[in-house]
């Protein structure tokens, strides 16, 4: 019992969320699931761990609403539950997984990646599973087939087998995985009505289960149904509805699938490395790195610092002939990559024509460093960026040395340094010469530490996204009346067109929105697009910095 308490306290301490992170979680929950879930989720994040009754009591919400909110959060994998401090006999305790909430920001990127790899079918599969949290294979296949059929020309429909094959591909390449079964499933829960959940406090890792990527055998044949508004469609609807409720017929009852975010993140990391090589060197070098990464996909564990060693012979054989790279050219490119200061590729031996690895962690560190330098440059100018880069490289420098190395006059250098200091991008370190810390006998050294600076910037990113969301909500609220009017007019136009109205009637309705109103709507649309696009772009930076920070923790 005591161990549990201590363990929980320590767990809470290390998992404390910053104010910006809590704020962003709240905004994301509100956007997707509404105010009620936001209230429940935010309170649970702040408290760390709570049981149902305490949660209902502290949020002052009706118990039923809290139950519904928790169901939604558990369904989407954002909330985990387990035996609490009082052990299996006590109440179940709930905890929010903030990282999972942040993933909601990245949904468009996951879906677009699925589209680029597996086409429209892959795109819809991932979209459906993301929106519903977890789904069985059969229901996913049916829903996606219906959606694809809806967009196909009249008379055509999507066969279930095609969707099944794309689903299988997504599972084989580990982009989808089975939801981990509850730990209580393993223990014998024979017949007892009130079996308490003997689950561990920690959520079970999906990859710890051997069947994680095993496709179930399902008995599913047929085609997607087209939703029609005519009377003929009713028979289809009833049949489709019956088919959807008869899940047990397909044979995969109870086997739920979720998106494997980690796999997508590895893919994004590889993309970032390849594009960095392409920018720094050239297209051919990036293709070589792409080949190396592709070869190591299955053999490299998720948190590895570098890929498995590959010989130049192997790389040559694996290179696509379309790249048209001859063997001696490949050797030259490889030595170029090894010598590059970005250290993307390293040489670990000479057998097989040379053994090469991709330095994953070092690549991430360099990408993070490039991000930091870019931020300083865009906010403070290129000379401040020069000072920043200097300090990153030389670690500790005195004021005089900074002025000399950066070749910037003393007064301006001081100004820039103090500005960077006030923004916490640069730190001051005291090295005393004597034990009494006398200022005349102490070295004052400026220093930049990459990891804490990356963490600081990450918090800035969270704050930025929060600000962007709040601004978008404000803009929408300010123009609510106009937006509603525009929606009503669009609805009227749509119904008029459906019933075949004349052009004169349509223009009459269109003119109900005046020209200045139209301009206002257009400008609002432009602003919201810009804010949304900015969110997507900041999320790319969040991903890079978070990957870097995680990689440093993994190696410790």
């Amino acid at each position: 019992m005591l161990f549990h308490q201590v363990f929980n306290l320590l767990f809470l301490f290390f998992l404390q969320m910053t104010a910006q992170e809590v704020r962003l979680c709240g905004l994301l929950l509100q956007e997707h699931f509404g105010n009620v879930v936001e209230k429940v989720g935010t309170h649970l994040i702040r408290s760390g761990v709570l049981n149902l009754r305490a949660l209902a009591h502290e949020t002052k919400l009706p118990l039923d609403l809290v139950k519904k909110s928790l169901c939604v959060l558990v369904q989407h994998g954002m909330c985990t539950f387990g035996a609490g401090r009082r052990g299996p006999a006590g109440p179940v305790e709930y905890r929010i997984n903030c990282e999972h909430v942040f993933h909601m920001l990245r949904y468009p990127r996951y879906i677009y990646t699925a589209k680029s790899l597996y086409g429209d079918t892959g795109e819809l599969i991932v979209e459906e599973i993301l929106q519903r949290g977890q789904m069985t294979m059969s229901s996913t296949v049916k829903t996606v087939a219906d959606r694809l059929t809806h967009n196909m020309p009249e008379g055509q429909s999507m066969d279930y087998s095609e969707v099944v094959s794309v689903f299988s591909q997504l599972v084989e390449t580990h982009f989808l995985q089975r939801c981990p079964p509850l730990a209580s499933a393993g223990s014998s829960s024979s017949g007892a009505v009130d079996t308490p959940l003997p689950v561990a406090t920690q959520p079970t890792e999906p990859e710890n289960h051997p069947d994680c990527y095993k496709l179930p055998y399902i008995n599913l044949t047929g085609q997607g149904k087209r939703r029609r508004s005519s009377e003929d469609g009713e028979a289809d609807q009833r049949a489709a509805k019956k088919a959807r409720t008869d899940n047990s017929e397909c044979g995969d009852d109870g086997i739920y699938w979720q998106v494997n975010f980690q796999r997508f993140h590895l893919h994004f990391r590889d993309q970032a490395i390849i594009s960095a090589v392409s920018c720094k060197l050239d297209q051919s070098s990036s293709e070589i790195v792409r080949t190396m990464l592709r070869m190591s996909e299955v053999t490299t564990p998720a948190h590895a610092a570098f890929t498995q060693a590959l010989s130049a012979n192997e790389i040559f054989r694996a290179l696509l002939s379309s790249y048209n790279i001859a063997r001696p050219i490949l050797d030259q490119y490889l030595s170029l990559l090894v010598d590059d200061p970005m250290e993307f590729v390293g040489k670990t031996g000479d057998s097989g024509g040379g053994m090469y690895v991709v330095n994953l962690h070092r690549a991430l560190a360099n990408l993070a460093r490039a991000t930091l330098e870019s931020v300083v440059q865009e906010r403070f100018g290129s000379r401040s960026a020069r000072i920043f880069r200097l300090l990153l490289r030389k670690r500790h420098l005195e004021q005089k040395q900074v002025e000399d190395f950066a070749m910037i006059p003393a007064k301006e250098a001081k100004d820039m340094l103090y500005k960077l200091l006030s923004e916490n991008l640069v730190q001051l370190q005291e090295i005393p010469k004597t034990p009494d810390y006398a200022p005349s006998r102490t070295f004052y050294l400026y220093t930049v530490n990459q990891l804490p600076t990356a963490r600081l910037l990450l918090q800035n990113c969270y704050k930025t996204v929060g600000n962007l969301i709040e601004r978008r909500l404000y803009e929408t609220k300010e123009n609510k009346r106009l937006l509603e009017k525009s929606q009503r007019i669009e609805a009227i136009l749509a119904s008029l067109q459906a019933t075949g109205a004349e052009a004169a009637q349509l223009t009459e309705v269109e003119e109900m929105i005046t020209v200045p109103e139209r301009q206002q709507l257009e400008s609002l649309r432009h602003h919201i697009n810009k804010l949304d696009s900015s969110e997507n772009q900041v999320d790319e930076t969040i991903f890079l910095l978070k990957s870097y920070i995680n990689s440093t923790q993994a190696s410790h």
Partner: protein
Amino acid sequence: MAGSRGRGRSQFSFSVDALGFGRGDSLPSSAHTPSPLYPPMQFRPVPLHTGEEVDYMLALKQELRASSKNLPFHIQAARTKTDVARYSDKYQNGETKNNCIEWSPDWSRMPKELCIKVRKPRKTVIGAKPQLTRKPKVAAGKEEALQKLETLEKREEEQHSEEEEDEEKKKQNEEEPDADEDYDEEELEDETDYIMSYFDNGEDFGADSEDNMDEAVY
């Protein structure tokens, strides 16, 4: 620290050059007000990325936001009636009630204490006239089934007829909730002669503005 104070009083304990200004210069003015909320930027920000990929992801983001509002996971508190109970309450459409959940989770994967009654919301289909013909069909179906049961009872043996009865009952039960779901609420609910908007007592007018939802999405 105390030791060096006695000697060389005109000497400062740090080199004055390191401060960045000479002896006679005035100190930089101190701030009297908090820094402005939107300080003028020295450097303009770099423009956003553009391209097909960016546009597609923007469209995806906005679509996801719009569709997530319609999913059953978007939970709203049921509006509490603060007035007296009204006759029209009986005929008001079944809005979301707190004690019902609008989707059916797999309860075996959730803690038992979260279990709550599942009730799929009745969908209003705007302008779907074919729905009108459903009710007579269903009614006819019921009658037919009843007749079938009677004849079967007479003709078949008891065991066999019981099986058929159960099947028919199951089909009836399945059809009823199905039919309920597809009922066009505007007409035909609870067999009144009035359309449902007749019972609209105007309470909802203007109430929506209190909600925090942003309805329009681009």
